[in-house]
């Protein structure tokens, strides 16, 4: 056995089944007697439902049942709950309109489910769904974020009297206004953070399976957090106690946030399986995913920085309008507030910050956290603003950043927006990134590109994010309706092999390997004898799931605590067996030793004794070697770093090609470098997608124009370069592993680096800002306008 512990790039344990077609995704599961559900969804953005006629559909071949919102209401089924409550500036709670599982009275976005057809085959269900006649009375709708607060805007929820979900702020406005009053420069920027569709490759699916003999329900679902789904659906929607409800999230084909939330279809199939007394399966097709998976981003902001004559940032003032869509998705309210505004200090010493956020309802798919969630929005705003400051003041953009960095000796560092950073070294990540990207050699490359008729630009972003979500008491005080600790159960079997039961969930992150490496490291058990189990509420004590780059920092820390307990108990057993005092027992390399002697027992000796307690301190301790720990983090973690992009623009078409991308990130302790690099590469690809390719575009009438992969531009292999990825790590100071998290950094740091490079490439065309995505036609228009202007001058 080679080195398999912390720091080893061991190959992934889960790969064999994925590579041989033996993965077990939700749609791969079939239950005996299973029926198929198809949703009949609204094809209009806003309409009153006058009536739903299911008579013809009910008679269609194979149809077993058809249900509407009225049927669910009869069973007193609750609405889909929201897990986070934000308070308005005046202290009143946010507006929280009902979110019926199946539409009641009105539809509020294209894709809003109105009825479900359950039939013997999926095609029969689909055939019948078309036969449902819905009598709609169309109503005016709004699809663009700013339109939501325009005078006379149609209301998404009549009872609210406006489309405002909340009007929230952070910081002291008067203090910030005062900083602006005395500033040498005030630099202002209006910007949009484009709406995105997560598009995990596996479409969502759910199977409800009601056991008629026991009355137990099982839900198989494409979820990042099965325990959260059990809690939300059981307690708030279907009123099923936890002991009667099992939620299984088997292999899940990517999530990126979109599979955190409790969705209508999960409740529908679970409830319907009891109604029809047979299992019910629903699988989204991609078109359905576009109109029913929560979207991401969608901010419209104005940012202003007060800057001293020497370039020091004096104060930051932000106004943001955030789109919630038609209903509140599970964690939506937290995204543009505590995951966004608290990040606005970034890596800088800006002493005072004020941010106000209005969240609004529109007739669009609900918006919630998507890879990075709030932090990409904050980073894009800040890093674009810093480049504008450099442009407006004439200070070099790298020098400006250096000048305002929080120094590495200033930690712990209290920001003016609530967070306290524990560690970081922004000068180092910057320095290494500049070297890795050959920043100094760029002008020669620009000139060479120019000789080929191409416009070359280089862009930088120095960023920070908060993850390792999250200290329960802190988030509770901010409106979270859940704790955000994590749970681990470590089971050392009688013969010394180990099973880890973790409350985190792997949907691509490689936990079956990374978390097993923690066991190799701490208990000295070979990787081949460690298995990681996740994704099943019947097997795992509890857990909050995977998002917010929390699995290692929080879930891994819970494992460390549980293994500490294993070792502590093992020492007692070893002391008994070797007739020594517990204080004299040391544990290392899978072996308990009596200090200063050659007397030792392996972990297997101890576990065998624990399960076959013939010679055992039975009066002192219980048999078995199986420990559980709950770990509640003391703080967030703060990964950060520097991303540098180099692009070329074809002035004839406006098309941008990413030539080089360099990332130097600080993610704390790295357990598996290969996996960390993969996470960063994937995140960067999504960031480049946001910057250059992707946009969820609604037309004025509320239809999603980019509603399939024919029109929504997913990054492909030939859109991307090889990535130059490295880490320069400082340790997290408050968790036992020192790990910070790596899942989101790529998607957070990269969009502004790309956009700053695009704008740098176009610097001769009088460009100050371009909203994402920087598509060919958009840049071509800018180049055309610039050429016209230059010709006129």
């Amino acid at each position: 056995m080679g080195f398999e512990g912390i720091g080893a790039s061991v190959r992934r344990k889960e790969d064999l089944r994925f590579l041989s077609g033996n993965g077990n995704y939700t749609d791969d599961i079939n239950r005996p007697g299973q029926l198929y559900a198809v949703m009949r969804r609204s094809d209009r953005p806003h309409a009153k439902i006058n009536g739903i006629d299911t008579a013809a559909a009910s008679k269609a071949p194979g149809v077993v049942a058809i249900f509407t919102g009225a049927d669910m209401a009869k069973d007193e089924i609750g609405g889909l709950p929201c897990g986070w409550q934000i308070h308005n500036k005046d202290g009143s709670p946010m507006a929280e309109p009902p979110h019926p599982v199946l539409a009641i009275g009105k539809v509020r976005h294209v894709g809003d489910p109105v009825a479900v057809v359950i039939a013997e085959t999926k095609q029969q269900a689909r055939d019948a769904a078309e036969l449902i006649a819905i009598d709609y009375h169309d109503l005016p709708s709004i699809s663009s974020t700013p339109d939501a607060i325009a005078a006379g805007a149609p209301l998404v929820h009549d009872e609210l009297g406006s489309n405002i979900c909340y009007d929230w702020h952070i910081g002291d406005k008067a203090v910030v206004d005062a900083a602006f009053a005395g500033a040498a420069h005030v630099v202002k920027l209006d910007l949009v953070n484009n709406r995105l569709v997560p598009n995990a490759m596996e479409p969502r699916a759910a199977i409800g399976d009601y056991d008629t003999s026991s009355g137990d329900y099982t839900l198989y679902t494409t979820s990042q957090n099965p325990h959260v789904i059990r809690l939300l659906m059981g307690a708030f929607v279907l009123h099923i106690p936890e002991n009667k409800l099992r939620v299984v999230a088997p292999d899940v084909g990517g999530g990126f946030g979109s599979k955190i939330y409790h969705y209508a279809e999960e409740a529908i199939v679970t409830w319907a399986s009891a109604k029809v007394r047979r299992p019910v399966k629903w699988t989204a097709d991609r078109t359905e995913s576009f109109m029913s998976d929560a979207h991401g981003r969608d901010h419209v902001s104005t940012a202003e920085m007060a800057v001293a004559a020497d370039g020091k940032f004096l104060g930051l003032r932000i106004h943001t309008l955030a789109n919630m869509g038609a209903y509140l998705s599970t964690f939506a309210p937290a995204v543009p507030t505590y995951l966004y505004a608290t990040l606005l200090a970034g890596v800088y010493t800006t002493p005072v910050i004020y941010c106000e956020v209005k969240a609004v309802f529109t007739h669009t798919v609900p918006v919630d956290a998507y890879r990075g969630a709030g932090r990409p929005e904050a980073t894009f705003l800040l890093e674009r603003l810093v480049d504008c400051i450099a442009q407006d003041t004439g200070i070099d953009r790298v020098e400006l950043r250096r000048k305002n960095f929080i120094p590495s000796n200033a930690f712990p560092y209290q920001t003016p927006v609530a967070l306290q950073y524990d560690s970081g070294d922004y000068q180092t990540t910057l320095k290494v990134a500049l070297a890795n990207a050959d920043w100094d050699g760029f002008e020669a490359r620009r000139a060479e590109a120019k000789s080929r008729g191409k416009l070359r630009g280089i862009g930088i972003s120095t960023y920070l994010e908060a993850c390792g979500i999250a200290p329960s008491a802190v988030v509770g005080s901010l409106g979270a309706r859940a704790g955000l600790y994590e749970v681990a159960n470590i089971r050392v079997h009688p013969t010394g092999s180990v099973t880890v039961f973790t409350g985190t969930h792997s949907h691509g992150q490689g936990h079956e390997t990374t978390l097993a490496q923690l066991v190799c490291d701490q208990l000295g058990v070979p990787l081949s004898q460690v298995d990681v189990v996740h994704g099943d509420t019947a097997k795992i004590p509890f857990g909050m799931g995977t998002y917010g780059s929390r699995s290692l920092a929080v879930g891994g820390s819970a494992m460390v605590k549980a293994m500490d307990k294993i070792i502590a108990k093992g020492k007692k057993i070893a002391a008994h067996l070797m007739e020594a005092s517990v204080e004299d027992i040391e544990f290392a390399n899978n072996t308990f030793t009596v200090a200063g002697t050659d007397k030792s027992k392996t972990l297997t000796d101890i576990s065998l004794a624990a399960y076959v307690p013939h010679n055992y301190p039975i009066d002192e301790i219980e048999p078995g070697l199986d420990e559980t720990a709950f770990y509640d983090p003391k703080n967030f973690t703060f990964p950060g770093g520097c991303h540098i992009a180099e692009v070329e623009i074809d002035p004839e078409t406006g098309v941008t090609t990413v030539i080089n991308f360099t990332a130097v990130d600080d993610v704390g302790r790295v357990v598996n470098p290969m996996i960390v690099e993969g996470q960063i590469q994937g995140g960067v690809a999504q960031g480049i997608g946001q910057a250059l390719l992707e946009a969820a575009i609604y037309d004025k009438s509320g239809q999603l124009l980019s509603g399939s992969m024919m029109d929504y531009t997913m990054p492909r292999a030939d859109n991307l370069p090889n990535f130059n990825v490295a880490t320069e790590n400082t340790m997290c100071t408050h968790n036992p592993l020192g790990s910070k998290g790596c899942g989101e950094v790529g998607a957070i740091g990269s969009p502004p680096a790309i956009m700053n490079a695009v704008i740098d490439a176009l610097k001769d065309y009088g460009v100050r800002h371009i909203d994402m995505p920087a598509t060919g036609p958009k840049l071509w228009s800018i180049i055309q306008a610039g050429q016209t202007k230059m010709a006129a001058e």
Partner: protein
Amino acid sequence: MYDFTYQKPASLADAASILSGDADAKALAGGMTYIPVLKQRLAKPSAIVDLSGLGLSGITVAGGTVTIGAMTTHGTVANSAEVKAAIPALAALAGGIGDEAVRHRGTIGGSLANNDPAACYPSAVLALGATITTNKRAIAADDYFQGMFTTALEEGEIITSVSFPVPERAAYEKFRNPASRYAIVGVFVAKFATGARVAVTGASQSGVFRHAGMEAALSANFSPDATAGVTTEADNMNGDIHASAEYRAHLVGVVTKRAVAKA
């Protein structure tokens, strides 16, 4: 997909008779466009008539003409040594349609019968002045394309082969839709002893079209520089979230210039 009856006739006559006898029956070639249409329930044929059993595949080169059987796949055309030698631009065009898996099943006959305004093949057929042979007659390219998704084919008429005259020089250049990878603008340029022919796909609301201005300029001087100053009206161009009419009109010039440079 709505259900249908599936038929795989063994002769052209049988295929034609099924299609003529049932207005709701539809021919299926490679299915790369039509199966997605069926999956979206945008069509409800009574019967699908699979043309793959009719022996319509194959490539022959003779007497300055390349003849390609209607059921010949894009992949076969792309990799054909004969086509590469005679009209390399045609092989290159076929090799750029869709992706590898699509090219293994998509056919030239299917592409032409469908006449998707963003398809590649129509531009080659029109620019090369090809002849489309059916079970009933031969149709000149200039008479064949009649607007988006519309052709001279009659009910029950089945394309059997397409014959391309070999030009002196030719090239195809495509600016792709970033999402679907179909042509936003595709231009096929061909130089014959009699002059240049230029066909544009993807751009126009009327489907593939010959570009008179470019043809005049390139007939006089078949060089990239000759395209400078030749404009394309935006009025009749398509506009969508990926490219406005103005952008498409502009791209026609850029793509034509690049095609000529490649020829």
